[in-house]
């Protein structure tokens, strides 16, 4: 029976697939997502598996796709998700895909290489242009203005011709070098050429683009004058060493001008070619961007199918693949259908065979969840996945979790804020899911939107009961308290006490706390008593319910021994001690009233005679008798002393019952088994029947597999039982006290709320004058922000945490094993989602 209460029944199935049909069948099963395959070749290396070549090809395709995606992202082209279901393609389609990707990749690489070469060319031409411009300056500076405007000016003028007697021909080289390298370059030149070369340099103002890295770098133009060939070689070598690019620069100004013009035209041509190359690249990428998401999905699906096929075994005849999978029993029909579809698609004639296997292994735990229950199941799974087919705490958690949260958070205003936020998330579910946000905190809040919705609704309810709206009370029905004193008397006193004997009408406020308590100074004293008692009552009920769920588990797994030896003493212990405490609380609430003090005969039912429940309980456990105080009876009803003693004795007797009964029964059982096996030669059917009867319904007892090696040694059984008993007994006391956090947190929340109002909002409200409105406008903003930040967010998270702890520890340690493992079926959806998340990271 598929339900949230217990995990699904799972079956281990063996699947025989014909090799031709295997791919299609696995593809259908992947779309269905209901089978968890086991690895039948755990010892085989990844590189020795059958389909390793196909997986390698898929990896290669993925690599090409990633390269394409990177280029697409670099250009900032958006990639659309078509949103349709992309099916895993046939194996023969893989070759087409490979060819397409290969072509695209080659084209793109070619385009990129060409672009790089063009850019290099462009860079050279630009540098040459700068050189020609700057060297003009150098040559102009050399020209003496007093000389004639003859353009044929030698660099050194007449002196150069006269000095050596022969014409000194100065050679020069011109080039471009990175600006950072110039000082070292100069120094090197000076030293290497012994100061016989002359360097002039000028900076290039615009940064140039480096073709390989794409960075913008600053360069300078330099020109070096030297005499003779040896210096020339030396200079050239140094330039090479400093990676300066040398350019041929003509000597005469006319040639330089012609060259400059030529360079400009070539630069313009190159620009055109470059822009056309970029356009082409852009077009190729845009065309690819339309399909890239679909290609990714296809390739990932193919890879997943081949990974799964690698888990299968090849049978003896080499024609057939064998697979083992866990399948929910209720879905066997769906699996059969999927397999039939797969065989039809692949055109194979042999139908696949699916048969169930009996196994002693523990199956995985599988819950059928919808978007509402998934959040709550995640909360429980975070502590531990339910053991196979044990009772699932989730359906109860759906109500108890928001309720316990609300007891700690109770404020109508804050609850309303939480509710509205969750409502917005739930109403806008679909567009918010489609956004695929990567913000982790947002994803956590969004994943828990139904939890927050319920928490908000329940908080609004408890806010009504505590009568607390942003720390103010609502007077919906009119207070039942009234003041009898005259105005004069009230004005004379600082505080006025309203006695419930005289200041209270005969009716009670219909829903929640009377609003008068908000203006009372002893509000906390009153509420404390109420909230503490309510916390204990809720706690005891929650824990007793946990023990009952344990009983359902025992009944389901037919562990009668556990029912007698664990459940019954546990429930008796808890009921006789802690449920009795709750009954005392209710009795005190009902039987004692303030009005009774008005009648002297009813003095024992008056408020000031009511005995303290806590003291009564402590005296009960310590077997102390209570003394009469003044006129008041220490006991609440007749025979209480004797009855309480009886309860405590029985409760204490439960402890050795829990400790010893089960080990003793197991011991007896094993003795019987030993005796039975000792007479195994003459073993009659009746003896076996007897032993079988004792062993029936007793899965907790050791399976008699042999004489001496049993599942658990007797010592272990005793130790486990001891631990269990101590845990339960001490846990009863400490867990009951632990539920007092319901009181503590609700008190803290109420006080924080009050402090925020009185410290912040009151500043805006206590202004006398018309500018108070403006001050209030500003103060309200601050108050609202603090309310959201401190009271809703921080207190909300705190109460959430405490509620979670109460569930995980106090409730679940009464029955929950949590030792299972999750059912992780082979499902394309989850695999694609995981791949997408990994991609983003």
């Amino acid at each position, binding site marked *: 029976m598929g339900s949230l209460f217990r995990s699904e029944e799972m079956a281990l199935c063996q699947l025989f697939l014909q090799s031709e049909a295997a791919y299609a069948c696995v593809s259908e099963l992947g779309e269905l997502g209901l089978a968890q395959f086991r690895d039948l070749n755990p010892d085989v290396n990844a590189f020795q598996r059958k389909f390793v070549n196909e997986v390698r090809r898929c990896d290669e395709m993925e690599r090409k796709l990633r390269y394409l995606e990177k280029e697409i992202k670099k250009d900032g082209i958006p990639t659309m998700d078509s949103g349709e279901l992309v099916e895993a393609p046939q194996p023969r389609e893989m070759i087409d895909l490979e060819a397409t990707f290969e072509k695209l990749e080659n084209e793109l690489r070619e385009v990129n290489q060409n672009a790089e070469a063009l850019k290099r060319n462009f860079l050279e031409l630009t540098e040459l242009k700068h050189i020609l411009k700057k060297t003009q300056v150098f040559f102009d500076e050399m020209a003496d203005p007093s000389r004639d405007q003859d353009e044929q000016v030698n660099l050194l003028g007449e002196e150069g011709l006269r000095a050596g007697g022969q014409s000194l021909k100065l050679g020069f080289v011109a080039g471009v070098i990175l600006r950072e390298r110039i000082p070292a370059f100069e120094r090197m030149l000076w030293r290497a050429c012994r100061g016989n070369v002359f360097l002039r340099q000028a900076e290039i103002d615009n940064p140039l683009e480096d073709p390989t890295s794409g960075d913008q770098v600053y360069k300078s133009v330099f020109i070096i004058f030297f005499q003779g060939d040896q210096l020339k070689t030396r200079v050239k070598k140094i330039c090479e060493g400093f990676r300066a690019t040398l350019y041929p620069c003509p000597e005469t100004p006319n040639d330089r001008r012609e060259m400059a013009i030529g360079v400009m035209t070539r630069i313009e041509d190159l620009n055109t070619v470059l822009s056309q190359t970029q356009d082409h690249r852009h077009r190729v990428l845009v065309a690819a961007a339309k399909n890239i998401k679909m290609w990714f999905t296809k390739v990932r699906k193919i890879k997943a199918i081949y990974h799964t096929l690698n888990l299968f075994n090849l049978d003896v005849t080499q024609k057939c693949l064998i697979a083992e999978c866990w399948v929910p029993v209720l879905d066997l029909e769906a699996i059969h259908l999927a397999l039939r579809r797969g065989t039809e698609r692949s055109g194979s004639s042999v139908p696949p065979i699916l048969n169930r296997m009996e196994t002693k292994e523990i199956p995985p735990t599988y819950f059928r969840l919808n978007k509402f229950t998934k959040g709550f199941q995640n909360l429980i799974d975070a502590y531990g996945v339910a053991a196979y087919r044990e009772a699932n705490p989730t359906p109860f958690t759906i109500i108890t979790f928001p309720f316990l949260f609300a007891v700690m958070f109770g404020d109508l205003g804050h609850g309303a804020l939480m509710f509205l936020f969750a409502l917005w998330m739930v109403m806008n579910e679909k567009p918010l899911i489609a956004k695929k946000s990567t913000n982790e905190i947002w994803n956590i809040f969004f994943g828990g939107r139904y939890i927050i919705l319920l928490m908000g609704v329940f908080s609004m309810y408890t806010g009504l009961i505590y009568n607390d709206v942003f720390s103010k009370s609502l007077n919906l029905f009119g207070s039942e308290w009234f003041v009898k004193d005259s105005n004069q008397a009230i004005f004379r006193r600082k505080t006025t006490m309203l006695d419930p004997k005289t200041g209270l009408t005969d009716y009670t406020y219909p829903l929640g706390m009377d*609003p008068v308590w908000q*203006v009372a100074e002893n509000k906390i004293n009153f509420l404390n008593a109420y909230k503490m008692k309510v916390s204990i009552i809720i706690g005891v009920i929650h824990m007793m319910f946990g023990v009952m769920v344990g009983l359902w588990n025992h009944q389901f797994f037919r562990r009668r021994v556990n029912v007698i030896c664990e459940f019954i003493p546990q429930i008796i212990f808890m009921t006789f001690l802690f449920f009795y405490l709750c009954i005392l609380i209710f009795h005190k609430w009902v039987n004692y009233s303030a009005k009774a003090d008005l009648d002297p005969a009813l003095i024992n039912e008056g408020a000031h005679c009511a005995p303290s429940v806590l003291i009564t309980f402590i005296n009960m456990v310590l077997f102390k008798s209570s003394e009469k105080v003044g006129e008041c009876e220490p006991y609440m009803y007749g025979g209480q002393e004797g009855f309480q003693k009886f309860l405590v004795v029985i409760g204490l007797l439960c402890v050795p019952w829990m400790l010893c009964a089960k080990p003793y029964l197991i011991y007896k059982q094993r003795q019987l088994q030993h005796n039975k096996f000792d007479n195994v030669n003459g073993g009659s059917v009746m003896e076996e029947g007897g032993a079988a009867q004792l062993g029936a319904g007793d899965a907790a007892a050791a399976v008699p597999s042999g004489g001496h090696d049993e599942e658990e040694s007797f010592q272990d059984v005793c130790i486990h039982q001891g631990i269990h008993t101590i845990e339960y007994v001490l846990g009863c006391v400490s867990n009951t006290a632990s539920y007092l956090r319901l009181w503590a947190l609700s008190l803290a929340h109420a006080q924080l709320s009050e402090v925020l109002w009185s410290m912040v909002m009151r500043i805006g*409200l206590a*202004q006398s004058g*018309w500018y*108070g*409105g403006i001050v209030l*406008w500003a103060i309200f903003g601050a108050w609202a922000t603090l309310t959201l930040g401190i009271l809703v967010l921080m207190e909300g998270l705190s109460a959430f945490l405490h509620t979670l702890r109460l569930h995980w520890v106090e409730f679940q340690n009464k029955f929950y094993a949590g030792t299972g493992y999750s059912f992780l079926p082979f499902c394309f959806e989850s695999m694609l989602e995981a791949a997408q998340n990994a991609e983003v990271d």
Partner: protein
Amino acid sequence: MALCGPKLSLCCLLLSIWGVIQLALMGVFFYIKSVALVEDLPLEEEYKPTEEDMKNFYGDVDRAYSQNAFNCWIAACLYVGTFLISAQQFYMNNKSTSGTAF
């Protein structure tokens, strides 16, 4: 024209809606002289038990209630203004991010 980014304008928008609703309601509660808000009134520190002071007290309380009611309504109106400004900012921010898609 954009004074604040998309997030700030959205925050101010939601805050002003909350402010309008809550301050209007608080104004109503002050106007009907609800006892729950008595500690938020701007009153004198001490009133002596003389006839005069007692009369003053009742007068002061009535005045304080009305004053606070009007203050709350003024603040609510200011928040209506804030709402309009943030709504305009919000729409402007939205238009600039999604307007040029075709």
